[in-house]
């Protein structure tokens, strides 16, 4: 599966990226994690408020950092 973390480099965005990478490892998922930092690409994917999280093309969270449990749930659901 393909996971995109979108953020222009703010502290929250990096935090989300770390948590996603951690979850992927923890859950032993076969996933590619991409960190998108270009403002235009972020906008064009439909995110209006960073950090954003896109799993398999679906926007699952914007403007906040979900709890670790929530991230894991989202990833398991998308698997």
């Amino acid at each position, binding site marked *: 599966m393909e996971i995109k973390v979108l953020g222009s480099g703010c*502290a929250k965005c990096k935090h989300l990226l770390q948590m996603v990478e951690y979850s992927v490892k923890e859950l032993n998922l076969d996933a590619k994690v991409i960190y998108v930092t270009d*403002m235009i690409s972020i*906008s064009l994917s*439909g*995110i*209006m408020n960073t950090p954003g999280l896109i799993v398999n093309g*679906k*926007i699952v969270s914007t*403007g906040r950092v979900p709890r670790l449990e929530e991230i894991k749930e989202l990833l398991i659901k998308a698997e």
Partner: protein
Amino acid sequence: MATFFSWLNDQLLRMVWLDNLVKWFFSDVIGIHSDTLLYSSLTFFFYDVIKIFILLSVLIYISSYIQSYFTVEKTRSILSKVKGIPANIVGSLLGTITPFCSCSSIPIFIGFTKAGLPIGVTFSFLISSPLVDLASVVLLASIFGWKIALLYVLVGIILAVIGGSLITLFKMEKYVESFVYQQINGSVEENGFLTKKDRRRYALEQLSDILKRVWKYVLIGVGIGALIHGYIPASFIETVLGENNPFSVIIATIVGVPMYADIFGTLPIAEALVLKGVGLGTVLSFMMAVTALSLPSLILLKKVVKTKLLVVFVSIVTVGIIIIGYLFNFITPLMGI
């Protein structure tokens, strides 16, 4: 009852106790004579820094908690149901409660435009968002009183409504970069369910995020304010920005436009200038120019709109701020403020 409220206002908002504490500390504990310039600079600096950080922490927490109910996505869906000038009004009002930082102007611009909102409505939102928010209004009230703060909100919203409506009137859609109209790639799912605990956590995160972003502007702003307060002669400020100089508002606006600072950083400068006798309208123009327009945010916007639209946007807002400045300078003495 009225005296109770004014007591509450003095202690909680203007923090008279803190002013007294700081003055007592520097005169009685440190032993600096209260007639000196050093004394007035130091007391101004410490009183303002402490007051602003206390108020900011409380206010950002409260407003972030409220904002967790008004996400940008919800704002967009509310706006898509309104048409015409009412849409500009709703856009300006939502701009005051939706979380915003100038870094998110591009995603919001693209997100709104793609959803089919008229760009005039988006601009109403983009003008009011940095200009008016809960924290800045309460801080403004703590320095200049509630009348001024509410007037500020009113003219800020009017500026956003008129600015956005003019952009609609001029039919500027063709000056938006064409890639903005490309098809959306991802589908928007619901943004999860937030419990009260999630919202509290969100508010705390916002608080630490915003404090990390603005603390340096506050310190610089209060520093400049303290210098003006203690060391810059009133006669000099009077000549450049005083009521007798007919160009004072224009000078204040033009100087403020390219500057990038948070409203929290400009407030202490405004406070010091008013104490030196500068007209309130002149000072408000400076503050509005600094917060509504800045070089970094214009450079960002340039990526999504063509130069012509950008020039129209900057001109409308600049002229609007200048008019507001002269209006305030004219009205406030009449109102006895």
